[in-house]
């Protein structure tokens, strides 16, 4: 392989089944009975960011909106709050997709932290407009925790697209 470096592997195209499975696992992780929800990263948002950055043509605003509705109904919250937040998240991720992949893991995570925080803020604004009390600044721990998980999540999600070393040298 002429290009050599690990990030320069030629990847297989992402399969739709991989995307669907990753969303299912993320939803499952979200539905686990967590103790304090404000400190737990939003796995669905994280996976959505990943696919919007890597495959903006496959996963876009429509998918984000649908997944958001599913999260809303599953959590029994206002229908549309996550749909709105995830659409905005998908838009920002697609917009920054060409930029983010140039950085190393740490700076990528920093970008992701900002994207997740924007989505969280949108949910916060919607809920406060609907008359709910402010739940405390602890809700911003969740986007930070998500950003910390970013390198692991992106490594895991690229895994099914990797070719074998032998295949690449042919």
């Amino acid at each position: 392989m002429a290009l050599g470096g690990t990030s320069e592997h030629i990847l297989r195209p992402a399969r739709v089944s991989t995307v669907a499975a990753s969303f299912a696992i993320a939803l499952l992780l979200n539905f686990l009975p967590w103790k304090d929800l404000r400190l737990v990263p939003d796995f669905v948002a994280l996976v959505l960011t990943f696919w919007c950055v890597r495959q903006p043509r496959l996963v876009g605003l429509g998918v984000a909106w649908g997944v958001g509705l599913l999260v809303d109904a599953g959590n029994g919250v206002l229908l549309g709050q996550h749909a709105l937040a995830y659409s905005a998240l998908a838009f920002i991720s697609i917009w920054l997709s060409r930029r983010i992949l140039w950085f190393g893991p740490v700076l990528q995570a920093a970008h992701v932290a900002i994207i997740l925080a924007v989505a969280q803020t949108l949910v916060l604004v919607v809920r406060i407009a609907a008359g709910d009390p402010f739940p405390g600044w602890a809700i911003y721990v969740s986007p930070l925790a998500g950003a910390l998980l970013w390198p692991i999540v992106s490594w895991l999600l690229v895994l099914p697209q990797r070719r074998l070393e032998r295949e690449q040298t042919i």
Partner: protein
Amino acid sequence: MEHTPPPFFKRGPAPLVRLFFFASLSLALLVLDARFRYTEGLRSVLALAAYPLQRAATAPIDFLRTVGDYFSTQAQLFEDNATLRAKNLALSQAAQRYETAEAEAAQLRRLIGAGEKLAVKSTPAEILYAGRDPYSHKIFINLGERQGVKPGSPVADEAGVVGQVTRVHPLVSEVTLVTDQDHVVPVQVVRNGLRAIAFGGGPSGMLELRFTAGNAEIQNGDRLVTSGIDGIYPAGLPVATVVRIERDAEHSFARVICRPVAGVDRGRFVLVLSDETARPPRPEEAQSGKERRSEKARRARTKERDG
């Protein structure tokens, strides 16, 4: 890096247009849901789609619990058995006394001509998970429309009121806890019968009695039970204990903080109560001004005609 060829022609509408479209769709849904509650059908379909994932998410916890149960020691089981037997004895005695008291009360009610009180039916349910929403206090239970749960049913545990069923899906139901900011229970102080209204305290996990007069006779440690005048909660269920009272001469109302007695944030099993007490219909609402005026005019006309 990926070797999909870039499609030059088919790209669809511009991203900003798409964002605008989906954002306005979401906002429309939000308004429909929050203001008019028109979206319940769509919500139950989506909830049904999410149900297998939710069940799968609780499965590992259930599995760990089963494994834990399997390895519980014999000594522990003996001890549990002994405590339960002692408790059962005490409770059966109380139940006997309760039965005679209830018969007596029913007889007295018949004597004074008051309506008969029907027994409250209770169905045990398991808490599936707490709602993933830091803004509200809700739990989900494993009974739904199929099992006959109705929206509005009160939910209690062995210690007292936990909350109220607010939304019923086919297989699960959503219970709003008494500590939720939008939840209200009419209560009564056990010591002196003073009536008050307990509002959920939101993030604090406490309850607050609003609109109690500054000089109301209420003390720290007072126990509050449901008063039953709302027609939803059966009377006499324990709700909370008063923990703090702030009386301020500047305000006409006292600030009374209470701690819920039920395990609203712990425990695994709850009871869904269905109270089918025959109640007299509510009196009609006062007529609006316009109708009243027209009625007045009609009456004036008939008077003219008659006189």
